[in-house]
């Protein structure tokens, strides 16, 4: 080694050692991209325009506000998150994942680094916006605190959206990524409604309830961000990496905490909805995971006798994903009972729970009967989502038809479809026959999945026995 060697002459001192290598790489690359540069310049130009208009008509900020927030929302909730779709996908396409896998960077650090770099660039844009917010305040007509608060929430949602796109960038299906993009666009178009909700949230509430509500919202955003990133990480990780166990345990823990929040004053409906969505998301992932059975994955479950049954809930793969999902349904039903004072569920509530549970299960019938040769997890996930989207669209239009024509029977014809039954229950068109039909469909899905998973269950016991005998403790 030469004595005179230093990192400065190689231009390697731009980022400190403590930064994640992936973050450094992505920042170096990302800040040179045309998209970031153009977004930055355009946003600055629009901000200058907004301020000039505000200066021309001081005190009347409403028209300028619409333009201002339009540009901010488009940049932070559409342009920057959309870049996440290329994050992991580019590594997969370039065949560079293998090279990264041979370093000390695990799948999680890779995914997190890519997300962090995109968020850092978004923060840079937000820092560029801040002076214009202050100037608009100077010209009058705006509430600075509310503007900054709104910007904060937009940033939080942007971080979450970026996590969604980075997570889904691990999937090769263009159709799947396009569907996610459309969903994000729809959510973004509802951003103004969300903003209004968030700014009026505090009215009529105590300081404790506000703090709890904000904490719950931040916790939910944080959990969903983590979940989406781990979804991507688990898809690029080697088979020997077990992401399923921690993902399922975290979802279970998070859901239980949220379900207990009504005991300290938060709305029951909102908490049930959040827990339900989180468990549906994690189950969707669990029910389409590749069944893997490496001894290294089973070893932690073999070490203690009481851990062995948990392998059927927490090992990676859809056969265990099914039992995990059934556990979530049980806990959810239990929480519902708890919050209704154990007085039993009404027919409507029962229809919501049963059709909600069957909604997640029914695509498994198609997957295990008609797509048996599909083993690639990304494909399974994509097919599952497409079935759900189709069923959701059918259910939605049937309910619109039923509502517009006043003939509810149109929807009843398709009541066994869980999405239709769920919409029907939401519109107070509940019927016991629907509950039985949807329940039977869900049960069919469970039985078919168990039958298809039998070889895997057998293998679990076989490998466990082999591990136990090789390492008796």
């Amino acid at each position, binding site marked *: *080694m*030469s004595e005179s*060697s*230093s*990192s400065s002459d*190689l*231009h*390697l001192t731009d980022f400190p*050692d403590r930064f994640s*290598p*992936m973050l*450094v*790489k992505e920042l*170096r*690359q*990302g800040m*040179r*991209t045309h998209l970031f540069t153009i977004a930055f310049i355009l946003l600055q130009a629009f901000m200058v325009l907004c301020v000039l208009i505000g200066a021309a008509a001081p005190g009347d900020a409403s028209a300028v506000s619409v333009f201002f927030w339009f540009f901010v929302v488009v940049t932070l909730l559409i342009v920057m998150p959309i870049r996440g779709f290329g994050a992991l996908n580019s590594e997969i*396409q*370039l*065949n*560079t994942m*293998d*090279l*990264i*896998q*041979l*370093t*000390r*960077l695990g799948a999680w650090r890779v995914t997190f680094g890519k997300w962090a770099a995109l968020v850092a660039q978004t923060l840079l844009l937000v820092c560029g916006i801040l002076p214009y917010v202050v100037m608009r305040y100077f010209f009058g007509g705006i509430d600075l605190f509310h503007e900054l608060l709104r910007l904060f929430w937009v940033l939080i949602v942007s971080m979450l959206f970026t996590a969604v796109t980075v997570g889904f960038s691990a999937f090769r299906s263009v159709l799947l990524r396009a569907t996610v993009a459309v969903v994000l666009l729809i959510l973004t178009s509802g951003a103004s409604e969300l903003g209004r909700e968030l700014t009026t949230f505090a009215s009529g509430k105590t300081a404790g309830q506000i703090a709890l509500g904000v904490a719950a919202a931040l916790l939910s955003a944080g959990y969903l961000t983590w979940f989406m990133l781990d979804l991507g990480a688990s898809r690029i990780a*080697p*088979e*020997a990496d077990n992401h399923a166990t921690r993902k399922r345990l975290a979802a279970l823990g998070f859901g239980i905490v949220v379900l207990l929040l009504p005991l300290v004053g938060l709305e029951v409906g909102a908490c049930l909805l959040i827990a339900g969505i989180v468990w549906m998301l994690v189950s969707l992932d669990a029910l389409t995971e*590749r*069944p*893997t*059975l*490496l*001894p*290294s994955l089973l070893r932690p479950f073999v070490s203690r006798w009481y851990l062995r049954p948990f392998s059927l809930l927490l090992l990676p*793969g859809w056969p265990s994903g099914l039992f995990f999902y059934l556990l979530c349904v049980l806990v959810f039903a239990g929480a519902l009972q708890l919050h209704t004072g154990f007085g039993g569920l009404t027919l409507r509530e029962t229809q919501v729970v049963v059709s909600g549970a069957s909604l997640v299960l029914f695509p498994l019938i198609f997957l295990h009967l008609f797509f048996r040769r599909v083993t690639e997890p990304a494909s399974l996930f994509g097919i599952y989502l497409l079935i759900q989207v189709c069923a959701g669209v059918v259910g939605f239009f049937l309910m619109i038809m039923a509502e517009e024509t006043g003939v509810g029977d149109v929807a009843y014809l398709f009541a066994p479809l869980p999405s239709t039954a769920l919409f029907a229950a939401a519109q107070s068109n509940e019927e016991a026959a629907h509950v039985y039909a949807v329940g039977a469909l869900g049960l069919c899905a469970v039985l078919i999945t168990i039958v*298809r998973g039998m*070889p*895997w269950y057998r*293998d679990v016991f076989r*490998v466990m026995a*082999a*591990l136990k005998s*090789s*390492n008796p403790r």
Partner: protein
Amino acid sequence: MNETPQDVPQPDSGPESASHAAESSEASAPPVVPAIEVRDLHRHFGPLKAVDGVSFSVEPGQVVGFVGANGAGKTTTMRIIATLDYPNRGLVKVCGIDVVQYPALVRGRIGWMPDSFGTYDNMTVVEYLDFFARALGFRGEERADRVRDVMDFTDLTPLADRLINKLSKGMGQRLCLGRALIHDPDVLILDEPAAGLDPKARVELKNLIRILADDGKTVFISSHILSELGEMCDSLLFINQGRVIHHGSAESLKHTTSGSMLVDVQTAGDPEKIGEWAEMAPHVTLKEMRKRGARIEIDSIEPEVIAGVLRRMINDGIPVTEFHREERKLEDAFIEILGEMEAGVLGER
């Protein structure tokens, strides 16, 4: 449905066992731990048996060529050795460390160069190497030293600030080799490193590999260009349909044809004469007609028989101007071994 790689757990073979071996070796003759050891390796993708019972070992410091047709199982075997894939059955160790049980330890000992790799956009040569140096855990000046050393070794220093998607294929391969060397690994696994390179870049790459081999590194290299492998490899490993069909030195392949010898004969007159003569002469088989003579095979390596053939040729009026032993082409050897295997003569050597 599901795959069950490594059905039977293997509790032995950790770094501990390697160190125990090292300790016990002080008393007796030191046992050489193979740089790469593959035993009864199987890897199936559904019904396809990509690797079907491969066994071999590579001693430290050796350069071993891995040869086979497309789809023979080369890349799958190399990926398993490089901890990028898992075997369904069998044992693979690198420097005595089990690749399935201790992949992280193995990764510290190997440098992997895939057959194709993409280049990042908006990234310079030095940033690319710096990224991998950071990702391998190097910090501060040590990181800069590593980057500088591999850039010097691969002659990339003048290109340090060039964007890597602007590099030529040959420069890209040098960069890829440099990346594989950042952590100074003991074993290099190179999958088709010369594919698509022009002759100059190929020679440069060959020289770099030779330097690495002289430096004591074990190099396990696959290629379709057998003549190049023959020049730089200590031994060659032929694989076909997931099975090893030959493992031996290039020299032995070049010279041995089951007790026969190839001879290039050049004549002054009509070359047809030597062709006609070869068809009549004992101990001789005509292999190929050439512009100024022919390539014949003498069915013995006994000097008396060879001298007898030459004497008879002259006595029969063939105007011989040159008569010399010809090395068998490695391609011919490979095809011959393949043919023998297919005919069921050879089985598994």
